[in-house]
């Protein structure tokens, strides 16, 4: 039997199922006398104290097994156990209605669970599970029922349950639980987050898996795809054993590359950095081995708000990212890149027939000079705290570059006059995403400190095709000869002037493109955080010499298919990191 759920934590688990049904403590409602009710409130207070002790212990277990971040969940549990709206309200109900603690607790819990489940926010819906978890803990203490400890298993099982509460998750022992599957939940459930943190494969949202399996049923759990195979054949078991071995091998191999330099097998070094959309992403990028940020999209500061972001707000965000990486690591901040297709309440942007060919990015900024200067000022101030660089998007002509730099010079003069610190040597580069810029990149290279190739838009403008339009998206394949020739031209022109070239489009993080990009001389690769380690591993296995040779051959080929096949065949290492 094959079941399909939501992939919650990657990896493979093969073993007997252990079905944990929620026995659910029966809540009896008893009416009490006034005196009994008073005593009941005292009893409940004692129980709450015990519960807090229990959660503190679990918090410690979690801290040891999963680290400080996951242990924080229990901090919030402890705070809820001190909260008037939960504990206080229960005590009130006991006295008001003269009922036992169990019944009062059940009522308050239901109210809160219903409230949070009704909220318009997935994260908040999950909080309902927190309240159920706490309620169950208190209930068990009140009724003296012992909970099955998850650390009691003899051999590694695949745990099958309705949902895994944070407390349950924290007590999972990796030696005893090979993986788990639940009826409910999604990628952002506590159970999923903790599974990923503890690196235990998990599948959630299987709807009724607790009903469909019995204890002892052999199970294969594929946490990477969300598939589950019940009572697999010997062949399937062998297949997944192999996948599991490969997965574990790759995981430990990748970990070794976390702080390693990005070097080819013959010693050529490049920079692997991340694309981010907000400061929160920066921490994730850092954790995934990024050497810096190759594209810091700043639109988040401007969107979904009633007014312009202030210089202070912007400065705080840029500074935070700069400080996440430290002084030796580049942070390339792209100035505002929005246009008519995005709504801003506080800026009248014209409705356009062709927003992608319209009034946006640098064109908008060169007109809205106050707005542009505010951003530049914030970026310059942040440059005192890290290796910050500025990048202008959508440059089509040298006139635009000169105009932007003139405004930047004005801002610098203002800061100098006010005695505000900034990095006077800060690099200012441009995105190459418009074909016009590629064609005069030899001239632009004399006046820009670096280029970053934005392949996503460059491909669309070059091929005159919308990658979101299914009828023509086949034309937006990045390994297209025209695109590769443009890339070669940009890199050659930049290098002739002694300037470096990076790439921040999706192509940079595509393993199939990496050998050619290396061979063409790309200096910096900026991609999503999760693509960094695979790219670094791949680079370490191929030589620049081979990559250069392949690039020369590939750029004479006539079709994208031909080029892709050629690269895959010439570099079998690619398959190892896919």
């Amino acid at each position, binding site marked *: 039997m094959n079941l399909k759920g939501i992939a919650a934590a990657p990896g493979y688990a093969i073993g007997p199922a252990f079905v944990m049904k929620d026995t659910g403590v029966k809540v009896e409602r008893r009416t009490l006398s006034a005196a009994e009710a008073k005593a009941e409130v005292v009893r409940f207070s004692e129980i709450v104290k015990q519960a807090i002790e229990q959660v503190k212990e679990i918090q410690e277990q979690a801290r040891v097994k999963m680290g400080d971040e996951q242990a924080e969940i229990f901090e*919030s549990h402890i705070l*809820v156990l001190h909260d008037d709206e939960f504990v206080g309200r229960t005590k009130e109900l006991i006295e008001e209605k003269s009922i036992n603690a169990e019944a009062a607790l059940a009522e308050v819990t239901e109210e809160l669970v219903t409230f949070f489940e009704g909220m318009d926010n997935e*994260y908040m819906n999950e909080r309902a599970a927190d309240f159920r978890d706490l309620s169950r803990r208190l209930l068990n203490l009140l009724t003296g029922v012992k909970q099955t400890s998850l650390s009691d298993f003899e051999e590694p099982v695949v745990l099958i349950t309705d949902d895994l509460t944070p407390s349950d998750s924290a007590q999972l022992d990796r030696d005893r639980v090979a993986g788990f599957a639940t009826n409910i939940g999604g990628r952002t459930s506590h159970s999923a987050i903790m599974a990923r943190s503890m690196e235990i494969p998990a599948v959630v949202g299987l709807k009724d898996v607790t009903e469909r399996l019995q204890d002892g049923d052999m199970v294969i759990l594929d946490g990477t795809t969300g598939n589950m195979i019940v009572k697999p054949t010997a062949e399937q078991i062998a297949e997944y054993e192999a996948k599991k071995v490969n997965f574990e091998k790759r995981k430990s191999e990748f970990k070794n590359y976390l702080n390693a330099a990005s070097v080819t097998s013959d010693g050529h070094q490049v920079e692997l950095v991340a694309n981010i959309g907000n400061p929160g992403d920066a921490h994730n990028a850092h954790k995934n081995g990024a050497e810096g940020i190759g594209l810091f999209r700043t639109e988040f500061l401007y969107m979904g*708000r*009633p007014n312009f972001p202030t210089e202070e707000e912007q400065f705080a965000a840029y500074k935070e990212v700069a400080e996440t990486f430290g002084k030796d690591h580049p942070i390339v901040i792209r100035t505002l890149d929005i246009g008519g297709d995005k709504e801003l309440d506080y800026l009248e942007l014209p409705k356009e027939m062709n927003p992608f060919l319209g009034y946006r990015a640098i064109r908008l900024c060169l007109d809205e000079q106050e707005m542009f200067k505010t951003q530049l000022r914030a970026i310059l101030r942040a440059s005192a705290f890290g290796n910050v660089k500025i990048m202008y998007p959508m440059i089509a002509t040298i006139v635009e570059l000169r105009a932007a730099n003139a405004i930047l010079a004005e801002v610098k003069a203002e800061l100098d006059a006010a005695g505000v610190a900034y990095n006077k040597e800060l690099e200012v580069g441009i995105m190459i995403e418009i074909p016009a810029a590629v064609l005069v990149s030899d001239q632009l290279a004399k006046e820009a400190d670096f280029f970053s190739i934005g392949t996503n838009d460059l491909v669309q403008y070059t091929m005159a095709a919308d990658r979101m339009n299914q009828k023509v998206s086949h034309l937006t394949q990045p390994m297209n000869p025209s695109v590769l020739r443009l890339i070669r031209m940009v890199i050659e022109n930049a290098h002739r002037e002694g300037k470096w070239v990076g790439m921040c489009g999706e192509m940079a993080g595509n393993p199939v493109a990496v050998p050619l990009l290396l061979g063409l001389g790309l200096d910096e690769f900026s991609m999503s955080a999760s693509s960094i380690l695979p790219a670094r591993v791949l680079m370490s296995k191929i030589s620049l010499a081979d990559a250069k040779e392949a690039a020369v051959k590939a750029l004479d080929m006539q079709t994208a298919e031909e080029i892709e096949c050629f690269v895959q065949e010439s570099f079998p290492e690619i398959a190892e990191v896919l």
Partner: protein
Amino acid sequence: MQQQTFTIKNPTGVHARPAGAILKKASQFACKVEIEKADGTRVSAKGMVGLLKLGLKQNDQVTVITDGDGEVEALQAVGEVLETVFE
């Protein structure tokens, strides 16, 4: 009594971790500390459940109202935490 408006900057809004931080900061002050959402819902900043119930998201504007000992300090301190970007 003091009050001031602040903007939530954390990309994932005020979930358990930020709520805990706000609560901890507010609880350091003897005065009353309340948070009011744009739609008028007002809760004590010293209670976890109330804070979570507000369901604050990035870019939401909230008013902090403090009343009592240390109300000026409390206002700025709590406001700072509200505008903090957590991981």
